């Protein structure tokens, strides 16, 4: 479905979604959330199903670079918008610094909250390369974790921020 048009949709919508830089044709029932389409229709099960009420952050993805909750977003709304999920983060076998830090510092334990937490942290670091611990806590206050006690998550994001800044410096 193209952007800004008025169109009839019968039972199923056919449209192109841009996920992790790839254009994917998909067809789904119009009331389906982005979370459901990612997991059920595109097989991208990295994004997690938590509360489906907007309260836990497990389903957070980036849409046009902003962290949003895929359980509250209808997939039909996403025409023409760039969706980023956890599956798009690693470059081949090269993990993103956030993924490495979460693994090394215990920021991920059972891992259920991790995709949402990592994507939310990525949006933060893309905009603010040197956030304070307070700012990290605040930006990630919508991501609930039952395992880590949060301290390791904050440390992981700080470590990753440092790695991203170093990589940036080396590149320039």
């Amino acid at each position: 479905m193209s952007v800004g048009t008025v169109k009839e949709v019968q039972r199923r919508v056919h449209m192109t979604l841009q996920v992790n830089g790839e254009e994917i044709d998909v067809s789904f029932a119009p009331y389906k959330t982005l979370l459901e389409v990612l997991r059920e229709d595109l097989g991208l099960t990295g994004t997690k199903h938590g509360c489906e009420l907007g309260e836990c952050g497990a389903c957070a993805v980036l849409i046009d670079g902003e962290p949003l909750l895929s359980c509250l977003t209808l997939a039909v709304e996403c025409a023409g918008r760039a969706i980023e999920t956890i599956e798009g983060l690693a470059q081949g076998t090269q993990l993103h610094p956030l993924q490495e830090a979460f693994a090394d510092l215990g920021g991920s334990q059972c891992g259920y909250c991790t995709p949402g937490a990592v994507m939310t942290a990525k949006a933060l670091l893309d905009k603010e390369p040197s956030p304070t611990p307070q700012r990290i806590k605040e930006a990630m206050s919508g991501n609930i974790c039952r395992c880590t006690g949060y301290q390791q998550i904050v440390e992981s994001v700080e470590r990753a921020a440092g790695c991203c800044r170093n990589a940036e410096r080396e590149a320039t």
Partner: protein
Amino acid sequence: MNEIEQYLAPRRLDEALQAMANGDATVLCGGTDLAPQTESGARQYTAKLLNIRRIDGLGGIAAETDQVRIGAVTTISEIRCHPALAEIAPVLVEAAEHFASEQIRNAASLGGNLCNASPAGDMIPPLLVLGASVELACWRGGAVQTRLIPLERFFVSPGKTVKLPEELLTAVVFDRPAADFVGKFRKSGPRPALEISTVSLALGARIADGLLSNVRVAMGSVAPTPLRARHVEAALEGKPLDAASIAAAVAATAEDAKPIDDVRASAWYRSHLVRVFLEEVLNDVRGN
């Protein structure tokens, strides 16, 4: 679940209003109220789903003139991060600061917060003390018609407003507050993030030569709709901000706040919070 048969994402306001003319469209903005409500079965989509996010001119904050205008689809994040608004109406920015979480703020719209008409809507008390009005538009007689309603008269009961089904809320407007205007906001919940307000309170007033004037006090979650606390306002109007006027205002809250017991808090606790918040904001202002 009802089937959505038509999904519309128009670019133009007149197109959207024509699609709404029969009053049978479900308006979707950020979906942060609509999605949980349809998910839980509290509400159903109608056959026609209208996404208003892509309509040109329905977003944006114009704060340069004597009148501040905030488009209906403006997100809470945009309000929170708007430098001019932080200067002119910090009370509104403060409420945005305490709203839900980063991910929700990125989706949630100002118009959605008002149209959802929850007694706990956090943007409402600050807008009431700023004396805001809402602009409603519809398609009638072959043209776009608009009317302006003071926000105070917008809410009818939980989830109900005076907005007709064929009307779209297009903007919120208020006069640029005077240079001596002070505004404060407080809300409470069991934790700082992701909390629906147990009670919220906003104060707006002008202060000149130590005397309060144009006092407005608004409260959320103490009645079926957010309200102006007239008795509290009367206790403060024209008064110096001292221990006696603060005590009188705090006592007057009993006349205005008529909270109920529900799953989030008891009526007693809510009444207590209102008194504490009012005293805090008044002492805050006095301290400055």
